[in-house]
């Protein structure tokens, strides 16, 4: 019997070994695929060079800047909409009209308005991050225990104090879940921008590797991008668990 902890590793290990053997046996020469050993070599080469790190920095900088701006806008709008029913109902049509626009469709507008570089990418990432943040924080604020809001009214808290002392602490676990979703979207959108148009970051590097017919390097970049996505997600999950414990998983009020 295979020990339980090793079961998940079996499939990837078998696949990698089979692929390596297959490329060796058929003596494959390809512009699109490379044996795992060559990918590993390309990965080590890329990790010891500077280009991969510059590209990683560019991608992460745009991702995080866009995420910060987008979630700040989404969060403040979401809280305002969650607190004020009037505001929420008045904005309904406007939000329904803008939200379905795919963020990537804004790429050409951002391109002619801002040119290549960080700014256009940050704008698009921010646009994409606004929506999950807005929708989920609005729901989180709407789901706050009504008695807490009554307490706020009895204590005659000012609107600013009400947000700071009651709303944000009560809705924080669910807001963080929204932030985690926004973060994964931010990375996807950033990489997509770079692959489609913007000549910076990991997306541009993987396209360059493809155009240079370096399949090994291209796949190494693919794995690296996957690893960054995995680490970002794992880091935020860890933060969520250690900040909020079970409250975050329950998704309710503490």
């Amino acid at each position, binding site marked *: 019997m295979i020990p*339980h902890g090793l*079961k*998940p590793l*079996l*499939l*990837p290990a078998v696949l990698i070994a089979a692929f390596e053997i297959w490329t060796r046996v058929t003596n494959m020469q390809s*512009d*699109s*695929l490379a044996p795992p050993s060559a990918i590993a070599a390309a990965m080590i080469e890329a990790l010891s060079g500077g280009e991969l790190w510059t590209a990683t920095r560019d991608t992460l900088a745009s991702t995080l800047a866009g995420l910060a701006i987008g979630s700040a806008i989404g969060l403040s709008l979401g809280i305002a909409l969650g607190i004020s029913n009037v505001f929420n*109902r*008045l*904005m*309904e*049509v*406007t939000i*329904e*009209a*803008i939200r*379905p*626009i*795919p*963020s*990537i*469709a*804004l*790429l*050409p*507008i951002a*391109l*002619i*308005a801002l040119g290549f570089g960080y700014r256009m990418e940050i704008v698009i990432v921010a646009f994409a991050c606004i929506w999950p943040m807005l929708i989920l924080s609005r729901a989180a604020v709407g789901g706050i225990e009504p008695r807490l809001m009554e307490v706020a009214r009895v204590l005659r808290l000012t609107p600013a104090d009400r947000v700071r002392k009651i709303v944000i602490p009560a809705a924080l676990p669910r807001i963080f879940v929204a932030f985690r979703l926004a973060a*994964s979207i931010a*990375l*996807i959108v950033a*990489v*997509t921008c770079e*692959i*489609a*148009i913007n000549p910076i970051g*990991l*997306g541009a590097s*993987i*396209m360059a*590797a*493809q155009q240079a*017919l370096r*399949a090994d390097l*291209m*796949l190494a*970049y*693919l794995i690296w*991008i*996957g690893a960054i*996505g*995995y680490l*970002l*997600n794992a880091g935020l999950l860890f933060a969520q668990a250690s900040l909020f414990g079970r409250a975050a998983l329950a998704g309710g009020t503490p």
Partner: protein
Amino acid sequence: MKHTDMLWRAASFAVAASFIGLWQLTANLKLVSPVFLPGPDKAWAALLRGFSTGDLSEKLLGTLEHMIYGWFAASIVGIALGAAIGSSKAMRDYVAPSLELLRPLPVSAIIPVAIALFGLSQGMALFVIAFGAVWPMLLATIHGFAAVEPRLYEVARTLHMSRLAVILKIALPSASPDILAGMRLSLTVALILSVVCEILAGLDGLGHWVLLSARAFRSADLFAGVILLGVVGYVTATAMSIAERHLLRWRTSGH
């Protein structure tokens, strides 16, 4: 109650209209260069012109075609594979963790690999769209199958149902809310990837249209394309939720 709802809706439309008015005013006063920001009147005119010459409707059909074909292929593969993995304990132990590992991968990173494999072709676009759209459905199906009420499986065993019958008669219906939610998410992914593929590979579609308009600084055409993409997103999402409500009616009607 119904009456006040209508009033709120009307007020909400009025707010949206005043935003468009503000946009028109900004454009008329040239607060933002008209190269980047055409007024809504110009964008609307470009939209009508595009449809009357047939250019825009052709691009719209192209995008819808990429999106729907990719999404449809992904639905079949995702649900079938999800059913196979979700209905077997061994598959869940061995295969599901690898899939979870792949989930955070930004799907667009597969585009260069697809270009290397298929060239800048329709096949490449189809592969990328299907690959991207398959994840939400696959994971939702696995999750839905894992969450089936165990007593239903016991009933199936008592009735000596075959594995296929268990999947078709018990697991799929019981997992259908999860699966449909996954399909709705996939629709958005499919639209985004269609646009990206059209931009990259120059395939006939709205993505290509907005890129060409931007390159030629025809901002009214560009905005017309973006508005149309928003409409596509809205209509497909709405159609999906109507279908979802329709298909899931049996759950609330007490059968």
